[in-house]
């Protein structure tokens, strides 16, 4: 009787103590992950401040950048008409171009990839062409597309398209070609028809490869959009940087670079996440 009573009494006292211990451990784990990057970033900022903090330095130090661009950081949504709009709108305009160009590249890239992965004839016919074309730098396509479309909007989108499509085609083709013999045998034993074979075996088996291609593709298109927008102008993060250079607003350029980096990172993660969701396994 007494022991039971003592247990009942002891338990509530024990629990918060255990809980706080667990919380402490969680905080320690979080610190172990977060501290190293914070330390390196802090160190680099300090180094930058020391190198550029003096009078007459060619680049502004971080403190200057923050002071100069505080207005842009605080209000990314202003719209004074023309190209004088907040960073949110600049980035949105660039993302729209990438979104359209990349989606077109994804659809046609996967279709072409499946084609050259499945058919040896198509592979022999198209692969040499793709191998040569994929080495052409994105911006080299711009004059041709400007001449063809006679408009800067579609030209920028075309540059994104042509940049992103090669890794998508090639990775999808590899994905289709590597389907293990066993899966084909299963399909044959079950007598799956062409349609079922494609949707039940080929597509799911090559999804991880497709998404590797899509991830590389989206990274490349984000690289290309900045360069393309510098040349074609209009609202967009690329032209914003070029405009900053022309107006000697170095702080704004540095802020834009940071934003470009973060968005690029997020795009990569989003594609990776969607890939995992669709494949139903880590890719």
């Amino acid at each position, binding site marked *: 009787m007494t022991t039971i009573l003592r247990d009942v009494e002891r338990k509530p006292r024990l629990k918060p103590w255990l809980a706080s211990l667990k919380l402490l451990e969680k905080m320690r784990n979080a610190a172990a992950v977060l501290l190293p990057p914070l330390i390196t970033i802090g160190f680099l900022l300090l180094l930058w401040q020391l190198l550029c903090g003096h009078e007459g330095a060619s680049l502004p130090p971080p403190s200057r950048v923050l002071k100069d661009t505080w207005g842009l950081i605080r209000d990314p949504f202003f719209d004074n008409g023309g190209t004088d709009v907040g960073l949110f709108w600049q980035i949105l305009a660039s993302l729209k171009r990438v979104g359209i160009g990349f989606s077109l590249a994804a659809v046609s890239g996967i279709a072409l990839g499946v084609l050259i992965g499945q058919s040896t004839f198509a592979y022999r016919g198209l692969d040499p062409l793709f191998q040569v074309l994929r080495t052409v730098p994105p911006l080299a396509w711009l004059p041709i597309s400007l001449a063809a479309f006679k408009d800067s909007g579609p030209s920028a989108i075309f540059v994104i398209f042509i940049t992103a499509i090669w890794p998508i085609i090639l990775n999808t083709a590899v994905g289709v070609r590597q389907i*293990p013999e*066993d*899966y084909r*045998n*299963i399909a*044959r*034993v*079950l*007598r*799956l028809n062409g349609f*079922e074979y494609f949707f*039940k*075996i080929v597509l*799911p*088996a090559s*999804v991880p490869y497709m998404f590797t291609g899509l991830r590389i593709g989206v990274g490349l298109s984000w690289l290309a959009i900045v360069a393309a927008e510098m040349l074609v102008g209009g609202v967009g993060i690329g032209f914003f940087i070029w405009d900053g250079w022309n107006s000697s607003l170095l702080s704004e350029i540095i802020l834009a670079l940071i934003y470009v980096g973060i968005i690029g990172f997020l795009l990569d993660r989003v594609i990776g996440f969607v890939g995992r969701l669709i*494949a*139903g*396994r880590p890719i």
Partner: protein
Amino acid sequence: MQGYLTIEQVGKSFDTATGPFTALSNVSLAIQKGEFVSIIGHSGCGKSTLLNIVAGLSGPSTGAVLLDGQVVDEPGPDRAVVFQNHSLLPWLTAYANVRLAVDKVFGKTKSATERDAWTRHNLALVQMSHALDKKPDELSGGMRQRVGIARALAMQPKILLLDEPFGALDALTRAHLQDSVMDIHRETKSTAIMITHDVDEAVLLSDRIVMMTNGPSATIGEICEVRLDRPRRRLEVSDTAEYARCRKQVLRFLYERHAHNKAA
């Protein structure tokens, strides 16, 4: 000689860089309904080639295979294969892997509810009811092989073809699965051919053990009838004279008369 499955004068040669290579020649065998037959031989003796021909995955160069009076000339669900490396589709759960086969084979003859029940029934037969929603990556080697067997059984094949089904498993898991296969064989009265290179496995499971000579031009060397009553219990059976006789006959064949190339 006629059987439920008849392999008639089957030969197989491949074209290689150094000229044609004859893997199998003159293989004839008749298997009765409900019989469990093992094919044993050294690696490279063409056992898998023979199984692939019965499955219809590759065609014979000479001769023919007849199943239930019909010539085998393409793969089909009436000859379900349990592959050595399970070959489950990794993006599907255990249930979905079996269901894919069930839907394909019984899509027109069974309702969705019946197909669901049949899928579950077959997974229960291999004792995998607890892991219906697990993906192959989350299962152990033995469990994957169980699901592979369930998928093959679910097709309700005329003959079950097992291609070294326990080859990649550890000894304990292997013994468990052998017991399961014996139970299933007794319950479903299925006809089965199993490729193996394990003598004890062959004796324990089979009604007949077919011994293959070494390639090239491998053929059937000897056939050993295992006259042991079923159900067989591994511990009781292994002490009997019949077990010892069969074991000795197969070992003699493999290691005295057809010892593998000295180089190997």
